[in-house]
């Protein structure tokens, strides 16, 4: 399994629980719910990498570390969409090319409206 897929699966586990989990708990969850038979150290390494990329928070709990996502899946998705929509060409290079000639300001407003409905 590629490293990218592994990171994504582990994030999914953390997002579904949302409460801080130990490496062992993540490892068990992966085996039980997703039938991924991974080495314990692999899970630990990936969690460490995710913490370094600051998408996961490392929490000291007694002698063990627990891990939790810094944002919920919905929050992070909204942040990513906002990032894609912001950045007009004259400020800095646009992040992305859009297929629709959708005005970014209008999309932003729509996204904010959707956020507030929740």
């Amino acid at each position, binding site marked *: 399994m590629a490293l*990218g*897929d592994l*990171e*994504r699966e582990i*994030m999914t586990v953390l997002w579904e629980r949302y409460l801080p989990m130990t490496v062992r708990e993540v490892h068990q969850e992966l085996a039980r719910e997703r039938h991924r038979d991974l080495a314990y150290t692999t899970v630990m390494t990936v969690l460490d990498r995710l913490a370094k*990329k600051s*998408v996961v928070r490392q929490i000291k709990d007694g002698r063990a570390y627990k891990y939790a996502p810094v944002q919920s*899946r*919905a929050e*992070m*998705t*909204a*942040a*990513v*969409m906002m*990032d*894609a929509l912001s*950045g007009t*060409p*004259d400020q*800095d*290079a*646009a*992040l*992305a*090319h*859009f*297929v*629709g*000639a*959708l*005005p970014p*300001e*209008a*999309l932003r*407003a*729509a*996204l904010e409206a*959707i956020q507030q409905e929740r």
Partner: protein
Amino acid sequence: MTALLLGALGLTLSLIVPGPLARAHWPDRAPAAAVLLWQAITLAAVLSALGVVLAAPEELTRAFGSGKPVAAEGSGKPVAAAALIGALAVAAVIVLRLLVSLWGVSRRSRARRERHRLLVDLLDRAEQRQELDAGNVRVLQGNLPLAYCVPGREARVVLSDGALRLLDREQVDAVLAHEQTHLRHRHEVVMESFTAFYRAVPAALRSRAPLDAVHLLLEMVADDAAGKRTGPAPLRGALERLTDAVPLAEEVVPEQDSRRRRMARLASPQSPSRALTGAVVAAAVALLVLPTVILVVPWLDQALAVWPL
């Protein structure tokens, strides 16, 4: 005289030409060549500015020096030398400012895209894109219909599942072909160079017109490539659905105009005009070559005889 003419050319290219050219509709029939023309205009404006900086001090010292032929031989030399050094220094500052701006823009966008790619990879709903065969597509969960690409060495095309629900299979393929064209042709590099130029130019001399015009032209280039793959109808349908799905504020008129122009091209696709493409490319080349040959070379001829080298 050379400095005056080059100055006039530079001001014409940076202040007078961009507005009408951005509003003109003939570039829609040769978008790739038109991008080349915009690049030639921008580069020619920079070269004119450099030409003014180099030629003006030399021409001034020559004009004043010639008034007193006796003194010219002895006292003219240090003045000419100082003028030359000053001119070279200013020219170096201009070039450096452009390079620093370009470096900054590409560094910042690279970092931002890197982070963005990491996050879409983590958020990807892989199970929703099983039947899309492209390996670099990622699907975000959300009702807002979105389709965009994240350029870079490991590029991504991002769709929201809102967009996937809204579009049929053919339309999704057209959107993907459009985005993959942006990535394959490295359109972000073109946009970055225009952005860097815009940011480096003093506010009084710059115009947003080239940025917006080139952006629209690149969309047209991607539309054409996607149209070749899937036919123009699916892309047109996708554009319509993606735009109609979002309640738009009415005040954004220029964007509406560029959308109309893209829609019109997709509604009645014309075969690309080879004659127009040729003429536009020729104009772009002429813009770079002619001022050099007509103005700069004769001046250099005279100046080299006088310069204290």
